[in-house]
């Protein structure tokens, strides 16, 4: 590829998406229905707002007609203050994360300023629409981040056609959503602190892993645990796997002590 120069009127600006369309590098439309069966799916992720930011918990299983992978990363830092999670077709989802990461950095370098969190959420919308309306390889992402201008954690979810919706409490994506969502609906409170939000998010993923065949719960045999992420005023960080393991071990032991019955409380 040569030097990509544009005349002022044809210049795609700081948007990598518009630039990639100008040079013909984008999600190719696909019409083959069989493709869906060929590609493993990535599953349950939750995002929960709390009084100092937002947390995300994601299972790590990729499922085809069998378990394709047990250690998939479905959440990644899109930039220092933003996390992006994916559900749906793994192949397109991974590509989507790369494009999002690249786009936010591209904008930053081109303009010497970063996009607002809302700007990032809106930017992704036509990319999702372009993919999901032209291909059976559907991707549904979830965007969470720390909004530096409003000093708060914010969560944006998407529908299959790329519609963007801000959620003020929590959001879930993936096939285990109904189970995760139930736990979140019962346990969510508006004034939670980070620890409470992490515990609730972990419980929601535990429920999804327990009931949804395509969601992987904690794997004590291989020591593989869901990913837990915090985004607050100091940015994106991942909770170390040992500490996530302890949390899930505690939940699992509580359940084992009552023969698998939650007993009408969130525990």
């Amino acid at each position, binding site marked *: *590829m*040569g*030097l*990509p*120069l544009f005349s002022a009127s044809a210049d795609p600006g700081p948007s*990598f998406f518009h*630039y*990639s369309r100008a*040079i013909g*590098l984008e999600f190719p439309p696909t019409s083959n229905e069989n493709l869906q069966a060929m590609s493993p799916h990535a599953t349950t992720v939750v995002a929960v707002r709390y009084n100092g930011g937002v947390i995300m918990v994601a299972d790590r299983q990729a499922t085809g007609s069998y378990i394709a992978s047990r250690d998939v990363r479905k959440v990644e830092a899109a930039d220092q203050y933003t996390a992006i999670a994916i559900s749906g077709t793994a192949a397109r989802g991974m590509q989507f994360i*790369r*494009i999002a990461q*690249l786009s936010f*950095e*591209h904008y930053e*370098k*081109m303009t*010497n300023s970063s996009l607002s969190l809302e700007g990032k959420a809106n930017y992704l919308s036509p990319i999702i629409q372009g993919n999901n309306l032209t291909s059976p390889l559907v991707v549904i992402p979830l965007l969470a981040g720390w909004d530096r201008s409003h000093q708060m954690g914010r969560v944006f979810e998407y529908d299959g056609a790329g519609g963007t919706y801000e959620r003020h409490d929590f959001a879930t994506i993936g096939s285990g959503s109904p189970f995760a969502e139930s736990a979140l609906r019962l346990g969510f409170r508006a004034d939670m602190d980070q620890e409470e939000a992490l515990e609730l998010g972990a419980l929601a993923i535990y429920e999804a892993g327990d009931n949804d065949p395509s969601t992987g719960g904690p794997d004590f045999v291989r020591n593989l645990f869901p990913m837990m992420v915090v985004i607050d005023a100091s940015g994106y960080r991942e909770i170390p796997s040992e500490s996530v393991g302890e949390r899930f071990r505690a939940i699992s032991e509580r359940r084992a002590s009552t023969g698998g019955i939650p007993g009408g409380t969130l525990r």
Partner: protein
Amino acid sequence: MSNFFYVAPEQMTKDRATFAQKGIARGRSILASVYDIGVLMVAENPSVSLNKISEVYDRIAFAGVGKYNEFDRLREAGIRWADTTGYTYARDDVDARALANFYAQHVGDMFSEGPKPLEVEILVAQLGNMFHETKLYQIAYDGTISDESHFAVLGGDAESVKTRYQALFTEPVSRELTLRNAVSALAGSERTIASTELEVGILEDRGARRAFLRLHPDAIGEMLGA
């Protein structure tokens, strides 16, 4: 029938070079130098928003002198090229030498075939690692490319700045000392440059993937001991 006058290629090249040199000489110089653990770029620039130094990729930076609109378009093309290359292959495959060659080709084409030569001189700096060398690629208005391992000066007053810096440079030293030497070489003995008139960018390993950092005016003042 219009008359078509023959112009000798020597004459045309000379005229075009004079034109480009005049345009470049109107702006202040930029100095880039390797220091003990990084690369430092210093520009005299009273504007805080119209930058002459910029990040291109993880370990690559860009600097330009001359007409702002012309070198800024090259800067944008460089970022696009680097991001596309890194996306297509891998981040380690983005190499400053390839980018510098594309710049040289384009600037050279504009010099010999364009409606007018570009009135710019640009620099592509790369911080080395296991895959790439630390290098400063300098591209002149006519597409001439050169690579320097220690320092490079761009702009109208380049020769005298270079002579002054050569006298101060023996080996890569600390960031602070490099900046002080660079500023004194840019200023010369007759004048001083206020720290608010300086734009400074560095490439340095700071534990992050992106090595570029634009220094805050306060940090520049502190480093200069002002």
